[in-house]
């Protein structure tokens, strides 16, 4: 057993170290790699203060409760909130990275290791989940605080409660991960489920305000703090976070014997989850992966695009298809319209915007355009490497670098048109006020912003590529520096183009002025882009070799 644990620990460590090392073919690639690691390290480091703060609060709370300080018990209200939030996160995060573990597990299943042990190792890997890792110090600190405060018996019980709470999170995370992988063995089903979950997550925050009644004209909403009366929701007693907190509360109080029932409940929940996780693991190893549906017979057709050469048109169509057919691309498509649609519905419900006389639909269009542009940055800033092996096929064909860059920009523009059109239609239905010229000016402002930033994104994507598979939610991400720089560029140019239109409208109260301004900005953007696209094409030409290799994860 120890031998196997050592072997697996060494394997995980080696995979981690090799992942950090990567390959370094030339100086620019090395700079690109180090900057990626730097940004990841900064993100990882932000977890440390949070984890430390939670541990300090838990330790101080435990010490205070042992000392008989009633106010110290507030720490358990925080514990309920944190455990409740983690319960949701450990379920959602494996869905966001589905399709990850199954193949490596199949390889490990060939080794002479009992399946139960293999499952236990897979489940234990959940401890590396940063969300779970972040609360481990707090789970340790609470019993230590109790012991330091002079309640060793309570500390011992609290330590057991901490251990079971941790086991619950691990079992839940493992079940979500394995059941998700089992469900997502059919790529298409996986995509639709993941997108549905993401859509649900993105709109759930708007539900409380949607449920509110509309206010009479001129009335102002009353400020109030929502209070949840737990006695009105008896099912809460069975929630795992409530059971863990109740058991810890009893351990720290004089009613120590009352810890047993909630702890037994938590233990039973954990056992059931672990059993289901174990079953899912067995099914995952035994069931063959599913294939996508065959669908109707397809035939090779040419799609010409006016103004583009056949080569650039082929690249544009392929890029457009990548966005529409990949799970991450579809997420990009709806991540902008959904919040804007929610905002539009809320505005209509509250009748606040229409009462002010502002063109709410045009504002929705601008907001939707900005969100669509921002959400597409992850793709635009890595637009070549996202083709993966397809980029090699492109490089083997007689397409020029100029056509490649222009085709990519045209394909992304077509993809951008989908969420923009959606928010425009939603805006026209929900908030139809405003001159058609104003709507046109808003559309041109969004187009100008895109044309300004498209060659810059292409340049960044050529210089700072990262292996990124849009077909999987766990397919990585674009280079963080390229994504940040490209997003910053978007915000700057959008502020310029949309801001100019807004200023002209406010100054003149005429729809003609922002329209004229937008036309001038589109012309200016085209002029700038005609200078920058050749530079981007040159960068692609110089980096072809590295791009093709990085695109395939080499």
């Amino acid at each position, binding site marked *: 057993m120890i031998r196997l644990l050592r072997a697996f620990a060494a394997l995980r460590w080696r995979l981690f170290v090799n992942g950090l090392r990567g390959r370094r*073919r030339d100086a620019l690639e090395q700079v690109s790699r180090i900057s990626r690691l730097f940004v990841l390290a900064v993100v990882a480091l932000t977890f440390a203060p949070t984890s430390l703060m939670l541990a300090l609060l838990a330790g101080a709370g435990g010490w205070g409760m042992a000392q008989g300080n009633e106010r110290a018990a507030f720490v358990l209200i925080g514990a309920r909130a944190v455990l409740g939030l983690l319960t949701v996160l450990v379920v959602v995060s494996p869905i966001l990275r589905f399709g990850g573990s199954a193949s490596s597990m199949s390889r490990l299943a060939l080794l002479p290791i009992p399946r139960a042990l293999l499952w236990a190792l897979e489940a234990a890997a959940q401890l590396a989940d940063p969300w779970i890792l972040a609360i481990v110090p707090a789970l340790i600190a609470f019993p230590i605080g109790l012991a330091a405060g002079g309640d060793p018996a309570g500390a011992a019980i609290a330590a057991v409660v901490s251990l079971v709470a941790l086991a619950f999170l691990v079992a839940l995370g493992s079940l979500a991960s394995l059941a998700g992988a089992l469900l997502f063995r059919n790529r298409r089903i996986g995509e639709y489920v993941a997108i549905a979950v993401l859509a649900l997550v993105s709109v759930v925050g708007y539900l409380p305000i949607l449920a509110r009644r509309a206010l009479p004209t001129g009335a102002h909403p009353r400020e109030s703090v929502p209070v949840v009366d737990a006695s009105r929701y008896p099912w809460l007693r069975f929630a795992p976070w409530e059971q863990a907190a109740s058991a810890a509360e009893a351990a720290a109080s004089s009613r120590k014997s009352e810890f047993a029932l909630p702890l037994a409940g938590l233990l039973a929940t954990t056992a059931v989850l672990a059993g289901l996780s174990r079953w899912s693991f067995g099914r995952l190893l035994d069931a063959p992966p599913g294939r996508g549906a065959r669908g109707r017979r397809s035939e090779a057709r040419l799609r010409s695009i006016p103004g583009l050469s056949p080569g650039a048109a082929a690249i544009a169509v392929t890029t457009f298809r990548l966005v529409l057919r990949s799970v991450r691309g579809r997420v990009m498509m709806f991540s902008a319209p959904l919040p804007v649609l929610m905002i539009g519905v809320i505005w209509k419900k509250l009748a606040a915007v229409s009462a002010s006389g502002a063109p709410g639909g045009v504002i929705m269009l601008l907001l939707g355009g900005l969100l669509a542009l921002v959400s597409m940055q992850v793709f635009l800033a890595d637009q070549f490497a996202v083709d993966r092996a397809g980029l090699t096929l492109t490089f083997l064909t007689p397409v020029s670098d100029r056509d490649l860059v222009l085709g990519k920009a045209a394909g992304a523009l077509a993809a951008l048109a989908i969420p923009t059109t959606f928010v425009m239609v939603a805006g026209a239905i929900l908030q139809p006020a405003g001159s058609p010229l104003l709507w046109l000016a808003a559309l041109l402002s969004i187009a100008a912003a895109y044309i300004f930033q498209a060659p810059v994104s292409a340049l960044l994507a050529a210089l700072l590529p990262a292996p990124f598979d849009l077909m999987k939610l766990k397919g990585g991400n674009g280079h963080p520096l390229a994504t940040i720089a490209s997003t910053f560029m978007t915000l700057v140019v959008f502020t310029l183009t949309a801001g100019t239109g807004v200023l002209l409208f406010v100054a003149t109260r005429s729809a003609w002025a922002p329209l004229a301004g937008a036309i001038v900005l589109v012309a200016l953007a085209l002029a700038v882009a005609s200078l920058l696209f050749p530079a981007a094409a040159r960068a692609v030409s110089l980096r072809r070799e590295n791009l093709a290799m990085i695109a395939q994860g080499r």
Partner: protein
Amino acid sequence: MEHALTTQGLRRVFGDFVAVEGIDLTVPRGSMYGFLGPNGAGKSTTIKCLTGLLRPSGGAMTILGIDPSAEPERVKRLVGVMPEDLALFDHLSAAETLAFVGQIHGMPAATLRSRSAELLALMDLAEAGSQLVADYSHGMKKKTSLAAALLPAPKLLFLDEPFEGIDAIASRQIKDLLLDYVRHGGTVFLTSHVLDVVERLCDHIGVIHKGRLVAQEPLAEMRARVAPGETLESIFLGLVGAGGGTSARLDWLGG
């Protein structure tokens, strides 16, 4: 004889590692050229240099009489490539992959439609319908990649391990197709570890070992010079110095 491909002192290094060291290839037009070598010998690196995926660190080459470093797009219009990693878009179907290649080659719509239909039928890919490459088996991916290489009717075909990982029926179809292609004047440059297939198909052989070309001549002449009456496998093992039985015997196996 006119040559489809020549290299002089072709060299490629990765940092300190020399993958290909000054090789001089001569591939006659209308020949089936088998480029052989052990794993890691430099076969795929050579093909990548010849097809423009890697920049050579040194040397010169001509493909169909054209310098690819001077006119890369012109060369790419004349050659078809099935690379080692197959190079396909995961999110396209086989038909869409062919449409992509055909459109970049500027093929007329009618030609594209008829050639694609023929190729998809030949490769048993027509029934895959709108299924995406991401959901294909390895064999289907290989056939899609080969179809994409053949679509523009190239004068020279580079095939990196075309027979590995496909079933016997597809293998037979591909062999017949390649022989027919050469009979009609095309040139094939292929790598393979299936030496008996190479022996039956290829009329010219080049052997690379540790980045250096150790032999290159018509198969018949090579056999007569190196090991008369022997199989290509014996000749190959003799050339790369692995035929003397010097490897460990692994006596502990089977006990």
